[in-house]
């Protein structure tokens, strides 16, 4: 089956020769949540704006549902939903009017009432856009992106401005949308969001994709070492180095950190029990996407 999105050798140079995106290629399959993960200014938004047809690429080709978004926008109307980072609605437009308007882009009748309730805007249906809080605006924009029941939806930093509870609700709702077959392109700089939601992640740094895989796949490939941590009284723990799979053993105060691969927890636990030790705080710390990101880019996302 044809991929929903195909990007080949995309390049975008702004004036003053600022290269925002350099030779980016990727495909997004139907029904997956595809993440573009990177720090601010890495080129994620420029990439996705080229895919949406909001910017003209300097070079390369972009196809969405088989169409060129720049020149055949009318063919994509209602089939593509977008939530933008910076946008606004007219101050005196009411919430329900916005949903009704954007719903009219889709063929057939769209039930936006359910969407209104799902995204917690039921009580705000008659409120002016200008009276909404940042989080409410954000939720309205997500709802607007979804209102035409698009085949593919772009969410650019969708949980920015949402409180923790609203964030989790948003994640659940996006998963439900994916489960109904909608393809989702998620632009984010939140590692936990990418790890939780994305089926595949492209790590974007300085205008290029430097790695692309499932979140788990990225971890396995780039940061395969697990850590097992426990407290113990023993002075000498060097013998743990002989346990198969262990790469290093470090003592940090009362704590011992064992790094290695394989079924590390089980092996370390067995070795400790053999020595008559049974620490009650033995646990494994799996490497996270954040560790991978740090390793790949050499800097933290906030930089």
């Amino acid at each position, binding site marked *: 089956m044809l991929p929903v999105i195909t990007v080949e050798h995309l390049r975008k140079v702004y004036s003053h020769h600022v290269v925002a995106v350099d030779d980016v290629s990727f495909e997004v399959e139907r029904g997956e949540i595809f993440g573009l993960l990177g720090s601010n200014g890495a080129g994620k938004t420029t990439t996705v704006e080229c895919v*949406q*047809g*909001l910017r003209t690429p300097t070079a390369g080709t972009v196809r969405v549902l*088989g*169409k060129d978004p720049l020149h*055949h*926008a*009318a*063919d*994509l*109307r*209602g089939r*593509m*939903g*977008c939530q*933008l980072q*910076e*946008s*606004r*609605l*007219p101050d*005196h*437009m009411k919430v329900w*009017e916005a949903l*009704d*308007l*954007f719903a*009219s*882009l*889709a*063929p057939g009748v769209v039930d936006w009432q359910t969407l209104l309730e799902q995204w917690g805007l039921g009580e705000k249906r008659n409120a002016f856009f200008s009276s909404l809080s940042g989080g409410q605006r954000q939720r309205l*924009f997500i709802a*607007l992106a979804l209102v*035409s029941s698009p085949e593919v939806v772009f969410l650019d930093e969708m949980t920015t401005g949402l409180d923790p509870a609203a964030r989790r609700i948003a994640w659940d709702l996006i998963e439900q949308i994916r489960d109904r077959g909608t393809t989702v392109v998620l632009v984010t700089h939140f590692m936990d969001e990418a790890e939780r939601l994305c089926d595949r992640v492209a790590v974007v740094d300085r205008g290029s994709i430097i790695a692309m895989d499932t979140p788990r796949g990225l971890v396995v490939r780039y940061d395969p070492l697990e850590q097992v941590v426990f407290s113990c009284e023993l002075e000498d723990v060097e013998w743990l180095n002989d346990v198969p799979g262990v790469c290093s053993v470090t003592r940090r105060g009362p704590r011992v950190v064992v790094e290695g691969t394989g079924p590390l927890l089980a092996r370390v636990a067995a070795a400790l029990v053999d020595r008559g030790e049974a620490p009650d705080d033995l646990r494994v710390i799996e490497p996270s996407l954040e560790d991978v990101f740090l390793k790949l880019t050499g800097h933290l996302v906030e930089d």
Partner: protein
Amino acid sequence: MTTDGTSQAAGRHISHPGGLKVLLKLTWIELKLFLREPMTIVFTFAFPVVLMFVLGETFGNRSTTDAHVFGDVGAMNYYAPAYIAVVTMSVGVIMLPARLTDYRSGGVLRRFRASLVPIWAVLGSQVLGALVLGVIGAVLVVAFAATFYPVHFPDSLGLLAAGFVLCSAAFAAIGTLLGAVMPSPRAAQGAGLMLFFVMLFLSGASVPTEVMSDTMTRIGDFLPLTYGVDLLQGAWIGGTWDWVSALVLLGIAVVAGFLSLRVYRWG
């Protein structure tokens, strides 16, 4: 490539009715937005009526010895059609540019564009909305004048309607062009207000052309409202069609409309 082309053509064929649906929906929303805007109420509805009141109380509508100043008709017969033109001018130069620049700089257009709302639907809804507001404003002005002063019925309602549509089109095109070139809503508002007052005073809509100095008349010749006033007064008083004014307004509508479509940038 060829198969790609045919499928795209077929897709476009299906999507066209959707565009019209969006245009109508957007026009209806725009109309409501206009009515929620105090500037609209003041300049399109209240201000023309207040000026009509002032003029009516000053000159009355009797055929006095001064009647020749007002083309040998009563002052209010002279002003009623003129103020219909003023209403269309107010909608065009004050409201449209303010709105379009606000949409562009504030990210509203980006929002629309990302959802693939066609630009002709966005601009079209503004123009259609402006036309409907113009009708409401014109009805208010005429109703006021007819209620309180003995204004006679228009000599040709058909020509008046045609002239009104032409005036609205010309000023909507000017407004759209201003909205396209002005950098910010504040700049658009400033320019709009200046144009509004210059045209209000120098186009024969307040000071009759007959008593203006030569210089003022000559400046007036460059102002679109002069032609709007002439066209509508001709239709109302005497039922004549001023071809020169009509062609000037049509020219403005076509040229400004074309330019604004070329110049207008999405945010």
